[in-house]
């Protein structure tokens, strides 16, 4: 990456997409294509922690719930318990919808819960709100 690209990249808000399905991550990336974002990806909560460590300036995390190794709620708990990452808004994006899990996410500090399959335009509008605030 050249310096010009680095500078441009640094100016774009970063959104981390965490999902164990590569196709699901691609769908999110596609849905957000019209927003000028730097999309980061991780396939589980464990790897996502590393990505956030490396990019503490993330504007938003979009996170699946049921994933191998470290699930979305565990990742959420970890992010919200650390001072350096607690400010990063997290939206859950999942097929899961058990009321107890939704409540747990809310209590842990998630910003919202979106049920898959998502509508691309709705997701983009919601993400836009968060990156404009960041």
């Amino acid at each position: 990456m050249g310096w010009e690209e680095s500078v441009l990249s640094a100016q774009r808000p970063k959104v981390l997409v965490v999902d164990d399905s590569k196709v699901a991550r691609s769908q999110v990336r596609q849905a957000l294509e019209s927003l000028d974002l730097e999309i980061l990806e991780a396939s589980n909560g464990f790897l996502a922690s590393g990505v956030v460590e490396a990019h503490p300036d993330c504007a938003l995390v979009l996170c699946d719930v049921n994933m191998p190794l470290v699930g979305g709620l565990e990742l959420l708990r970890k992010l919200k318990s650390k001072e350096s990452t607690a400010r990063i808004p997290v939206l859950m994006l999942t097929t899961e919808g058990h009321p107890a899990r939704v409540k747990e996410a809310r209590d842990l500090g998630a910003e919202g819960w979106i049920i898959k399959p998502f509508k691309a335009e709705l997701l983009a509008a919601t993400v836009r709100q968060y990156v404009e605030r960041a």
Partner: protein
Amino acid sequence: MTIALTSEAVAILDAAVVAAVIERAAHHGVELEAIVGSAETNVDLACTIHFGGERVHGSFRSTATDAFVRALWPADLAPPTGPADLADWFGELVNHLFGALCVRLASRGCAVYQGAPTVVRCVDLERPVSAGAATREHFFRAIRGDVGQLRVLFDIVLRAPLDLTETVPSGQARASTGHDRLF
């Protein structure tokens, strides 16, 4: 102790599985119909999602051909590049199908926790994965195009008698699919 499903519960669960699968496939642009089928030998992928709740546990299992999975590939993405892409998408797709069923179960007071899908190149799915499970079997085919069939095995074990009276319209039982529930 195994608690048997009543015939009424069986009918409700069967209808819920069929409706959920057809609804979600339609979302992905493929019109399906339930058929009287039989297990195919030329199946490529198998996916299992375990679930548990206060009164039930079990698994939602599905098999399909690569051609079937390809037919439901997201229209807005570049075509799959190989078997790994199809397996990945099949796991996500079955996750969507089961998610739609969970909405229906929740509307009848039977909320369940979903596990993560596991996908393998074809294996025998005949045996129930949970001891004492009642297994309901369903077959679907695409109305247009010969892409093989989708087979769904729904294993359910009752921990307590199950009353599946609809208490909440399914749209209100959980966050609506595709819509935001911002806190």
